[in-house]
């Protein structure tokens, strides 16, 4: 009884706290939801206080020429806005070239219509809009006596130029990669896809970071439900900060527990456009060059953009190679363990004798040998990424060659194990996408353990479980193993093989495009234009 009361009291206190907190938030919101006041000082002071008199807030008070009684102020964030542009096209016309004001028209009207010489401006009375714009890099203009303010687009911060995509190297194809700025990225896509049906939907994610996110799709090609689903999932995100598209990926992915990614990311505009043309949705996130693509199927992580640029035979050959690399990366160490421990009769006798000689000094069972070697290679790889540029490869060579060689001659590891580890590592790099490669690298370890318990039979049992997981997995309603399970013969044309472009007349049906034919797009646009 007592306990109950106590707990109830505790609950009551917590409720109170929550209420207080909510109340505080509400008052904060209320203060932001005010209108711009006619008095200039009130407005500038309000903004100054709101930003806590941060040092990067620049407030410039000045007097408009030919209207000495009218005080005005420009507010912007140092470093976020292009101060030169503000000087030249906002301050200079108002301070020096304001002759037009002498005509008897309204001052605010003249400022808006002919004095501020910037392309994108917006007049508003809502303080919230103004503050949001200020924080995004716009400049604000207030004039004393008017209960409105002007948002002037003067965004101009230092940004990285367009660079070659680092994570997706190709021999042939565009060298342009996405940058950290959302608008640059959408422009890169727009430049390659001059389709009036290309749609952009802007969203803001992150309570505090207020990160701009754009959903891109081609209307009439992408499934409407898919677009809506994507929008819903992104709108539901409750996070205070979104610094990279990975935050969004984890919040909207279909299965949190899966080792396999259900959204693809790419740094290449050409690749993003190709996905759009297949009826997928692309999500561009401000602040990262990696855009998200959904839905994603398993096979897609083994495609390189180059597959579509090189001739189809080359592409098909490379895809078969990658499949082989996938299996080597996944199962070679496990097979080694299974053969040594359970099925030595399968190894050709000459090789078996050589292997036995190589292993004769090794004091551990093959599973320990393999685990130690594979783990150290993973550490080596991780270390070489973190090492400063020029040292990386050197350490890699020292680690792999010197330590490997020494381990063999010390009799700690058998020579064949070194070969197995080397092949596995190289094969895991045969995968064009980094995140899918990591999942294979991780799955190698449980597979090795399964092999050490039951040999080939254990490997098969584990693969069956893995297959079950893959079959159940879906990405935005598209089965992950499509087009093989469920089988869509028409989509096999672009899976393990790639048929020549002249025969690829239809988009893959697994992504449920609204317009299945690839070639009639142009005709359709013209027809609509004529109407």
């Amino acid at each position: 009884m007592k306990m109950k009361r106590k707990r109830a009291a505790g609950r009551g206190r917590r409720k109170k706290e929550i209420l207080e907190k909510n109340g505080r938030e509400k008052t904060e919101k209320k203060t932001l939801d005010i209108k711009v006041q006619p008095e200039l000082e009130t407005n500038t002071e309000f903004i100054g206080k709101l930003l806590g008199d941060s040092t990067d807030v620049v407030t410039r008070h000045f007097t408009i020429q030919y209207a000495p009684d009218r005080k005005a102020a420009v507010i912007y964030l140092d470093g976020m806005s292009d101060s030169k542009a503000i000087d030249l096209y906002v301050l200079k016309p108002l301070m020096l070239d304001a002759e037009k004001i002498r005509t008897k028209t309204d001052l605010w009207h003249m400022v808006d219509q002919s004095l501020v010489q910037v392309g994108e401006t917006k007049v508003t009375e809502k303080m919230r809009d103004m503050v949001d714009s200020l924080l995004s890099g716009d400049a604000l203009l207030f004039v004393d006596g008017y209960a409105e303010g002007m948002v002037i687009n003067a965004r101009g911060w230092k940004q990285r130029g367009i660079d070659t995509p680092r994570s997706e190297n190709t021999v042939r194809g565009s060298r342009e990669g996405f940058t950290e700025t959302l608008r640059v990225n959408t422009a890169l896509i727009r430049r390659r896809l001059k389709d009036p049906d290309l749609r952009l939907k802007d969203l803001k994610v992150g309570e505090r970071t207020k990160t701009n996110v754009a959903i891109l799709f081609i209307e009439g090609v992408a499934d409407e439900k898919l677009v809506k689903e994507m929008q819903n999932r992104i709108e539901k995100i409750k996070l205070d900060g979104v610094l990279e598209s990975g935050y969004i990926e984890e919040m909207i992915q279909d299965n949190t527990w899966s080792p396999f990614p259900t959204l693809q990311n790419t740094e290449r505009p050409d690749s993003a456009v190709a996905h759009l043309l297949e009826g997928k949705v692309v999500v561009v996130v401000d602040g990262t060059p990696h855009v998200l693509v959904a839905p994603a199927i398993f096979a897609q992580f083994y495609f390189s953009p180059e597959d579509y640029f090189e001739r189809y035979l080359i592409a098909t050959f490379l895809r078969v190679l990658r499949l082989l690399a996938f299996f080597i990366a996944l199962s070679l160490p496990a097979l080694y363990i299974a053969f040594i421990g359970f099925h030595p009769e399968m190894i050709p006798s000459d090789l078996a004798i050589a292997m036995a000689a190589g292993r004769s000094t090794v004091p551990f069972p093959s599973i320990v040998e393999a685990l130690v070697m594979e783990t150290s290679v993973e550490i080596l790889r991780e270390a070489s990424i973190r090492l400063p540029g020029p040292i990386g490869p050197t350490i890699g060579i020292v680690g792999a060659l010197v330590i490997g060689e020494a381990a063999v001659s010390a009799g700690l590891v058998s020579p064949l194990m070194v070969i197995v580890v080397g092949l596995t590592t190289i094969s895991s790099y045969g995968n064009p996408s980094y995140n899918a490669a990591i999942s294979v690298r991780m799955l190698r370890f449980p597979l090795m353990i399964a092999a050490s318990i039951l040999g080939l039979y254990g490997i098969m049992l584990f693969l069956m479980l893995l297959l079950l997981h893959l079959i159940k997995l879906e990405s935005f309603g598209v089965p992950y193993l499509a087009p093989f399970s469920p089988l869509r013969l028409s989509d096999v044309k672009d899976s393990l093989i790639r048929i020549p472009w002249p025969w690829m007349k239809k988009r893959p049906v697994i992504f449920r495009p609204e317009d299945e034919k690839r070639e009639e797009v142009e005709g359709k646009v013209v027809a609509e234009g004529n109407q």
Partner: protein
Amino acid sequence: MQKETSRSPDLDKISPYQSFAILFSTMLGVGVLSFQREIAKEVGPDGIWTILVGGVLILAEVWLLTRVMEKYPHKNLAQFGEVFFKNRPRPWLGKLVFLPFALLVALFFFAASAVVTRTFGEVLISTVLFRTPLEVLMLGLLGVGAAVAGNRPQVIARFNEFVFPILLLPLPLYLVSFLQEGNLDNLFPLFHLNWVKLLKGVAASTFAYAGFSVIVVYMGYYQQPKKAVKPHLWAIGSVTFLYWIQMVVAVGVFGRAELVQLLWPTLDLLKVAAVPGMILERLESGFLAIWMVAVFTTIINLFGALVDMVVTFFGMREQHRKWVALGLLPVLYYVSYWPANLNTLFWWNKWIGRSEPLMGLVLILTFLLFAMTKRGKKGGKQDVPSA
């Protein structure tokens, strides 16, 4: 965190190709490893054509079963009682009347998956994993099997669909061993049979064809039940053809006298095959690993059908499906551990093979009977609107 998404409608149904894969991989099970011996024991080289006769008989039976089942689309065996007794005042009566049939089929699925598990366990410890305890092998197989069988039949169908091509991988090896070691003299003399022997030979081959009755469950989930005949016949036809090849190869390579002595003739065939330039020697372990897939699909299809019957019969919710599978797992394990030795096991194998065609006949006749009475009722009931 599974998100709610609009699934494509064809994901919720079993496509014709998937139904082909289900039937094919259910029938292709442990029988493949030893059916040649059983047949050769009875009829010798004549097994080459008695296996075809057996295939045709099964084909006819599956055709009949499919035609009867397709009259009641999107219903499986456990729900049939409700269909027949839909307009009666007491719907549970239908369930009760149909309970013996459902129990019979469920019992068959249960026994078949237990025997298949045990047989494959015996294969493994007698050929590859000599020192591993049988318990571990069977529990591993059943455990992973339960994980798959605890899913909707559509998922099981996609599983079958994906692994189907793997089942065809060993085929070239048979041909290689026949080309290298085969002796046409072993295939003769043919047609030295009387009727009794012929019947015995056909009965012996039914063991290899066991498992076709899973369609009574999976047909309830077909996309186009009316078009089920074609994939079914194709499946039986392909299995028959595959068995025929294996029979010819086994008889051709070993001859009758040697064949009846071999425990697992198919595995011995692979020992015979030696392709020059092959990276690996002695392929039977590798073959068994691939063959595990075939056995595994047989187990999950039978086990999955059993689970689905339980779930639909009691009208359970979808989330409980995996618990049903998990609950059946220990019982299944216990039963599969029951036969004391290989002899008893083979006896069970034989009887499961023989009982299935009979069970199929019983089902066909019952369905026809119920359908006929229903049609009669319908004719007389025109003036009474159904509730």
